[in-house]
């Protein structure tokens, strides 16, 4: 059975990232048994080269604009505009700004409105206080969000999205209409126990 050579686990030289892209690129058949993370890591390393970094000790007040992807782990107060690029707010990032970008991924804290032309991701433990305007949004459990979400979508996709809900409503059965006075409905058998463990 193939075993990794000791030198496979040694760190690379200082001018190469530790997650080496060479592992995935090597041509020998043995590499099919290489750790599964290798292609992903090499992809990340390649990405990193194209991404601007702002470290956690950096504080900026004013307007931040750019034409490249950006990883931001510092403090920003003002506006951020990366119109056609991706912005990642790191876990140490503290942003008080309006943000415009193509994709926005939040790990840290943001106070301000967020507008993405494509996608917003709120990672767990992130905090967003502000309104979101985007085509797609992903919110992880544990993220804190205070504000409004406006999904920008075409008329076609909007009507498609409504269909399943409308069908569910039709199958749910009718109930008594809303009266102008107080009404009490005793749901003796139909309302289940409060907790039904899965």
């Amino acid at each position, binding site marked *: 059975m193939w075993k990794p050579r000791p030198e496979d686990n040694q760190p690379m030289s200082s001018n190469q990232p530790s997650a080496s892209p060479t592992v995935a690129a090597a041509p020998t058949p043995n590499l099919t048994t290489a750790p599964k993370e290798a292609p992903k890591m090499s992809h990340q390393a390649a990405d990193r080269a194209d991404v601007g970094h702002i470290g956690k000790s950096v504080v900026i007040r004013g307007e931040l604009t750019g034409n490249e992807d950006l990883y931001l782990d510092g403090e920003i107060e003002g506006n951020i505009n990366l119109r056609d690029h991706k912005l990642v707010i790191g876990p140490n990032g503290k942003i008080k700004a309006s943000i415009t970008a193509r994709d926005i991924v939040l790990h840290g804290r943001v106070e301000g409105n967020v507008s993405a032309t494509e996608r917003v991701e709120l990672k767990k433990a992130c905090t967003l206080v502000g309104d979101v305007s985007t085509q797609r949004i992903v919110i992880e459990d544990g993220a804190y*969000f205070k504000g*409004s979400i406006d999904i920008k979508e075409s008329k076609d996709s*909007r009507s498609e999205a409504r269909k399943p809900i409308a069908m569910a409503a039709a199958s749910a059965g009718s*109930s008594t209409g809303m009266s102008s006075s107080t009404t009490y409905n005793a749901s003796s058998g139909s309302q289940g126990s409060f907790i039904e463990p899965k």
Partner: protein
Amino acid sequence: MNSPNHSLSRWFRSGGEPAESNAQEKGTAAPRGTRRSIGFGEFMRSLQADLKAAGEQRLSILDLGSTSPANISFFTEMGLRVSTEDVLRACKDPDYMLRQEDGSEQFDSQKFLAENLAYSEGQFDAVLCWDVADYLPEALVKPLVERIRFVLKPHGTLLAFFHDKDPGPNSALYRYHITQTDTLEIEPKGSVKLQRIFNNRHVESLFADFASRKFFLGRDNYREVIVVR
């Protein structure tokens, strides 16, 4: 098999700290259960009727519970504009406590409402209040209901849950995740002191300025109330 009481007692044993933070620190997920909710089903039917009537106009909904990805996804897929504001979490901010001359502390509802729920009049077609009112500081209950009425459109709908009986010194607080148009997934969030029990008269009095109130009585010591502005 875990009984509901067994599940709850496990949360009570976790002490006064919110179980949510405990679970996150330990990397464990809180067990979830499901609940069929007639009140929520009624709420959805009302909302869908509004959606039909609105045509291309986008409706807005306000969720006052904990941030729930499921709820946000559910409503945005319907084409609604969703606003979410975790009122109970905001209430815990010590800045809202006013120290009185006699040394006691009172909740500053004016300051709270100046910094939270700052929406324009009639901005929302529907509001999900869940069981938030049972846990609010006394001084905030009435002003909050007035604020909700302010931000609701005429004929807008509010859904609220109320405990029917006092479950003890610490009541399990839940996050409500919508799974279907009449089914909720409930996730224990911690054990928090229930501030009061609203009886039917209290609830009617609380929403006296609204056009109608409709009660759904469950077998699980909860009342669900649909209120229409």
